[in-house]
């Protein structure tokens, strides 16, 4: 191979390798939506899905599923936040309503965003919410308190071995960071 040919063939190989590098850099970012899609299809990271629509369902009267609720505030969130009922027993297919209580203990307006998570995560696909405060952000004035409704039904297809689901909400202070975009509804 002459020196000229050598240079050309080096150059074309370098270009192809740089293509791989660029492609893998983009792949790193592509993992973000891929991860979301993968988790949504399989429901394995415990995120509930967006708003569901309730149509009259066959109610399974022979089965009771226990649902417990947990509410936590993250660091830097000066709200009191708790479920008004800690545990409910529901029949699959039936539409239920529970309420959460929140009060802003700070002396300024605060915007909150709650993020849901279900355990065991395999149950996430079967808990459908038709209405949830986590679909929106809440703005509370200093000292203001609210009761927030959440309506849900359990899919009758819930696997037999799951008799107990825990739905946990983490409440974040998003006054500065993300006010305006609501996230859980995505």
């Amino acid at each position, binding site marked *: 191979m002459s020196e000229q040919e*050598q240079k050309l*063939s*080096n150059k074309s*190989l*370098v270009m192809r*390798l*740089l293509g*791989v*590098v*660029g492609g*893998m*850099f*983009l*792949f*790193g*970012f592509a*993992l*973000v939506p891929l*991860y979301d899609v993968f988790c949504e299809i*399989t429901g*394995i*990271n*415990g995120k509930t899905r967006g708003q569901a629509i309730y149509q009259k369902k066959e109610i399974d009267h022979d089965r009771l599923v226990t649902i417990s609720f947990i509410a936590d505030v*993250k660091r830097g969130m000066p709200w009191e936040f708790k479920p008004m009922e800690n545990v409910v027993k529901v029949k699959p297919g039936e539409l239920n309503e529970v309420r959460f209580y929140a009060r802003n203990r700070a002396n300024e307006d605060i915007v909150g*965003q709650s*993020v849901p998570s279900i355990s065991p*995560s*395999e149950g996430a696909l079967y808990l459908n919410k038709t209405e949830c405060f986590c679909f929106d952000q809440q703005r509370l004035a200093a000292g203001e308190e609210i009761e927030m409704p959440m309506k849900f039904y359990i899919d009758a297809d819930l696997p037999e071995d799951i008799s107990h689901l825990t739905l946990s909400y*983490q409440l*974040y*202070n*998003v006054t500065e*960071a*993300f006010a305006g*975009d609501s*996230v*859980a509804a*995505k």
Partner: protein
Amino acid sequence: MADHHPTGLKRWLFTTNHKDIGSMYLWFSFVMFIIGGAMAMVIRAELYQPGLQFVDPNFFNSMTTMHGLIMVFGAVMPSMVGLANWLIPMQIGAPDMALPRMNNWSFWILPFAFTLLLSSLFMDGGAPNFGWTFYAPLSTTYGPPSTDFFILGVHMMGISSIMGAINVIVTVFNMRAPGMTLMKMPLFVWTWVITAFLLIMVMPVLAGAVTMMLTDRHFGTSFFDAAGGGDPVLFQHIFWFFGHPEVYIMILPAFGVASEIIPAFARKKLFGYSSMVYATASIALLSFVVWAHHMFTVGMPVAGELFFMIATMLIAVPTGVKVFNWVATMWQGSMTFETPMLFAIAFVILFTIGGFSGVMLAMAPVDFQYHDTYFVVAHFHYVLFPGAIFGTTAAVYYWLPKWTGKMYNEKLGKLHFWLSMIFVNLTFFPMHFSGLAGMPRRIPDYNMMFADFNQLASIGAFGLGLTQILFLAILIKTIWGKAEKSSDKPWDGATGLEWEQLPCPAPYHTFDTPPKVS
């Protein structure tokens, strides 16, 4: 061609010679090895007894973090690139690396990258303190201000190793001497090409991860922030997609070194050359589908745990093939035990111990006990110190006569080996036990019940650290001090173009006309 070249500082700044650049890489990595080692001494001093003695917890966390980063990116990876620079052109009969200017550049980025990283030690809020794995949100929401210097540093070292990897691939594909077919290449070259492909596949993903961290910290994105719709678990997936292949990036070249040295001192051909090549390639391929074995306790469906558990345990098969081949090469050979061979044999034995604890960690149900304990620390130090670092050390002793034309002192070399061998086990073996008993990693204080194991480990670590100063002394004495001249072929079992067709020391320019390959 005449054997003259510029001298003084300019020679090193502007050099495009693969041997100069190889030497600079090796010395750079040794400096980093000493700095990272000093940090390990701080850690072991603090852990010598329970309670808080010398440093405050935040600084302790900075030490574990910086020790990991410096050793992985500053000591092990550059030392392997240094060996590649010195050896690959000579072993395939090429006059130099294919892209000599880029070669210069990829080295000279490193001192700047690590100056940035090390400067964070002197900043307000301290150096990065979230562990070398920099999980979000520890490194995003709660990271100290110096985290941004860390991000820039990681970007720079990433660019450096990508350029180094591209250089290796182009050199091996385009610059081989006529007759040097792929399946005739020495195994060191093979393992390095495969390493280079791993590097260009995963270093860009790491670059993506730190870029996302940067935008999460400063530009209002929320890739890893649940409040904004992101997910911190996503960070772990992206990180380990890079992280698991990264551990093979650190060890594969050492596999290559062992596969050169063991046949030379057993005076036999390497057993199962082609199976070695295929085993290395399959280890590399499998490394892309096992990353979540670092995340068994994060929460995964049973199907996921099973998949990653089985895929991980599958890696033991090609690795077992390699260990079998090394042992079979020694079987009935006329072995002698000079320093490089001692380090290579210790490499095989101790790396295998690290491999076994790796198989234990691969089992999802028991990983729940081992996760984040000293058992994990014991495991990866067994594959990194007596694995990657013994591999590099063996290579340095083996090729030192080729590089310098002089012979190291065999007595001192053996002393270096035996002290390293004793202290490396004294340091890391007790960690298996404290880990199984439940001692968590990355914490400056511990329960009284772990005191004895930690005292042993600390004594071992101080000895191991001092022993490496002996290594430095041996190198200085050989290169600049009084040392015996080496014959052109100091190892009678050595094979390969660099031993058969070049004198010791190898001239500044080699193979300007391609050699004949039989």
